[in-house]
């Protein structure tokens, strides 16, 4: 990796000043940034460590009024938080399946949300869109881990953050502070589909810091993930859902899917199926089917279509009924 200047400020203001310079990067757990730096995908001149900033740590609030997560909170704190486990099982499940214990101990809420895609063309230095001589390497090559939605565009990577999928389902917001002050955005607004090479998939600008994530009180929520390995693997696809119930009837639904698009994929098609219905496993299955109607897989990832249908269905069943038909015992 390229040599860089290092600073470890203790306040957000000091951090923002340091991040103001050209080509600076925030460093939290480093589980993403350092790998990218070693592979020369990202070569910052200055690295600003944010875990010493007290303001950015900790989990506050409760199930009724909502909770706030500091951006530098390690993922393991979420896993060990009984309040989160009870109120936001979607977040708890998604987080507890990230990486390994070691990775969850090091990595943070902010770092997870703002990690860069794992697309193997991007990580090999071919850029986020994976183009070579005007051709998409992804389209012509091995796209087993790539997107199945919006595949007529150039951005075929998938958004890497499990946390984002859960937080968007939970309708969470993020506080971002920069040289121009502070703004609060919906977590889904942290992401966009880049239109050309060089444009980031993240809306947080260089020089800005994500400081907090706020989660409102939630309805019945849950997540379900499909993966190849049990140990230390990424989801192939995952879904997090959040249903507001009026009696037995679903009055509001949020269905978000991981591993299918360059952004955390909000499935309005699935949500439309759910709203106004009484919950049943059949309704969950219908929502799963609706979720994949617009899928247009690439040459090697058609398998993600039935898999996505399943994880949406199972996330819904898990959210409402706890235990699922697929679980043994």
């Amino acid at each position, binding site marked *: 990796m390229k*040599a860089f200047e290092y600073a470890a400020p203790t306040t957000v203001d000091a951090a923002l000043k340091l991040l103001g310079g050209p080509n600076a990067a925030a460093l939290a757990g480093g589980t993403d940034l350092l790998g990218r730096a070693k592979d020369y995908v990202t070569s910052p001149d200055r690295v600003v460590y944010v875990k010493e900033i007290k303001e950015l740590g900790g989990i506050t609030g409760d199930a009724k009024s909502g909770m706030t997560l500091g951006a530098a909170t390690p993922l393991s704190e979420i896993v060990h938080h009984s309040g989160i486990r009870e109120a936001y099982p979607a977040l708890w499940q998604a987080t507890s399946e990230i990486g390994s214990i070691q990775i969850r101990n090091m990595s943070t809420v902010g770092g997870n949300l703002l990690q860069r895609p794992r697309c193997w063309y991007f990580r090999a230095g071919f850029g986020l869109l994976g183009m070579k001589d005007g051709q998409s*390497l992804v389209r*012509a090559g*091995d796209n087993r881990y790539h997107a199945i939605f919006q595949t007529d565009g150039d951005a075929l990577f998938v958004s890497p953050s499990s946390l984002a999928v859960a937080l968007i389902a939970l309708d969470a917001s993020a506080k971002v502070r920069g040289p121009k002050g502070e703004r609060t955005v919906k977590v889904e607004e942290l992401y966009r589909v880049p239109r050309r090479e060089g444009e980031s998939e993240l809306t947080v600008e260089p020089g800005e810091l994500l400081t907090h994530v706020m989660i409102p009180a939630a309805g019945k929520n849950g997540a379900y993930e499909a*993966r*190849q390995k049990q140990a230390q693997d990424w989801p192939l696809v995952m879904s997090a859902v959040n249903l507001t119930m009026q009696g037995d009837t679903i009055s509001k639904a949020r269905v978000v899917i991981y591993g299918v698009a360059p952004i955390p994929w909000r499935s309005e098609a699935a949500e439309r199926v759910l709203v106004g219905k009484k919950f049943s496993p059949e309704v969950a299955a219908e929502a799963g089917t609706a979720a994949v109607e617009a899928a247009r897989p690439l040459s090697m990832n058609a398998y993600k279509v039935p898999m996505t249908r399943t994880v949406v269905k199972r996330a819904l069943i898990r959210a409402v009924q706890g235990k699922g038909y697929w679980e043994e015992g």
Partner: protein
Amino acid sequence: MAEWPASPSVIGKRIPRLDGLLKASGKAKYPSDVHPKGLLFGAMLYSPHAHAKVKSIDTKTAEKLPGVKAVLVIAGPGTTLRYHGDDIAAVAAETEEQARDAIRAIKIEYDVLPHVVTEAQSMAEGAPEVFKGGNVKKGRGQTKGKPEDAMASAAATIEATYTVPMITHVCLETHGLTVGLEGEKKATAWASTQNVYGIAGDLAQALELDRGDVTVYTEFMGGGFGSKFNADVWGTTAAKLSKMAGGRPVKMFLDREQEHCAAGNRPSATAHIKMGADREGKIVSVIAEGHSTGGVGNGTNMILPYVYRGVPHYSVGQANALTNRGGSRAMRAPNHPQSCILTEAAVDDLAEKLGMDPLEFRLKNLDPGSPMTPIYQAEIPIGAELIGWREKRKPRGKTGTGPIRTGLGMALHTWGGGGNPGKQVSCTIHPDGSVDIKTATQDIGTGARTILAMIAAEILGLQPTEINSLIGNSSYPPGQPSGGSTTTPTMAPPCYDAVTKARDALFKKVASAFNNARPEDLSLKQGQLWAGGEPVASWKEACRKLGTSPISVTGEFVDGLSSTGVGGCQFAEVSVDLETGEVKVKKIVAIQDSGLILDLLTWESQVYGGVIMGLNYGLFEEVVMDPTSGRMLNPDMEWYKLAGASDIPEIVVRAYSPPDEKGRQVIGVGEPPTISTAAAIGNAVSNAIGVRVTEWPMSPRNVLNALATASREGRA
């Protein structure tokens, strides 16, 4: 002929590795842990392209960077680079960072050439050539009897194309060594190798020294699996860099990317197989056409049919498709795991087609002419019992109705693993009672150090911990390179010979000191010297009688202590989620013979390790090449998937070791237990989900694709 003791006190017991605690506690110094004084760090520059010519190379900037002590060009202008990872140049610098920066400062102009990295690309009409003379090399074909006629008259036939991808060795310690020179004429190296004796010769040649001027140490090493027999370009390059830097030691270990790309692979294998059986369930014909790639090296030499060699009619054709990717190397039981998958999948499918229990079908088709057949016949019922075959196994497709299905599968394997003459072990008994065993072999995980100590302890009536078992040093008597499961069967006989002769020499020298006993009256057990049925002295007291002269004997290979040829069977129980394609292996049962087992504990650990490696082959591993850029896309440990602790199922290991099996003497066990695991897992998955998954590994993608194809074709 020599014989192992009939009622041993150490041999056959469970003896913990002598260096187990050192390894488990991190105290063991592996070659990559060694930091001799004045150490420089080496780094390799390797090709980012699959096929290119070096137009120009400029190292001037790199040479002037701080800390850089030596720069060596390996592929000068005009050289053709044939794969991502091919060696171009190397640097030695004061720090690792400086070395890596210097590598990036070397300026190269490439003429990028068209490449072929997949078998399809390689075999296409008019494909760019990897080497002059065409990409496709016809391999060994075989015909026996009249396969077409026999197929036509078969009562049931199956026909399918089965595929297993290329994988790599992924040694946890990457390839490499640290090497330095003292003066002009002496070199010392610490190498991660499975051939400590041979690698000294490689380095001597690179340095224009005699073999004896180079001492190589391999006290410990972090895995080779067949890929670490030579010093390789990077090793000899390190030696040359050291020479250029005035002899300062240079540490050169590959990064993971180059390790994956350039340091060996197990070739892929695809075969289109027709197999037919008669009404009684006897296989009558096999017709197979296969192809594979081992990059710029050899492809798979498919043994088809595998194990069931008694099939009366068969024809096999195969081709090796050269590709622009690092060359294959031997990998734990070369050719066998692929051959096992291809054959055992077809055998299983044919049994299902006939409506026969695949276990009975296998028993029916064992080769009557093979010495392994009685072994399989004995092992299969043991394995069936341990996996619960009779109670649990349901016919394919009749495994229930829910989304999670469980299934059972099995497969058979065979291997050689015999000992070779020509290697030596020395034994020195010192007057203070200490005993040194020396040989230039190494412990690649098979327990060589412990096993040599056990043999000595057995013969001298001592404990293995009382023996100094000295290996991993090229200046010791020539020892065996660890390949082909030959280390134990090759090194045990000369060890036995050396220690027996040393003991007899001891008896001769000291007998008179014990009531004028005759040497033939003496024996050793329980740490005592015995004369005529009485303990007369402790081991130490006996040795003291040697005065000032130790006994030193070099042992040679003796006949009668080792042999070759093993058979084994493995069973897998899996659960498969039909909706997500996720496969979980619940249990593996491995039954293995290997003659006389010296250390049951290290033996079992070989089998566990083999099964885990086979599980990775069955579920996770595959080299992914990008057709357009020609690069390996997963040269890491993130997308090159390997099991973690939670992926490991219950593994039940049983030695098949009745008295007549012990009479077969010592046979190696390093390779056989990894052969049939992946085949058994694939068969279990097909049993669970009701359709054959023809492509390994059993990933969710391959499972869901197989289900989708079957449902399109109306089969499920």
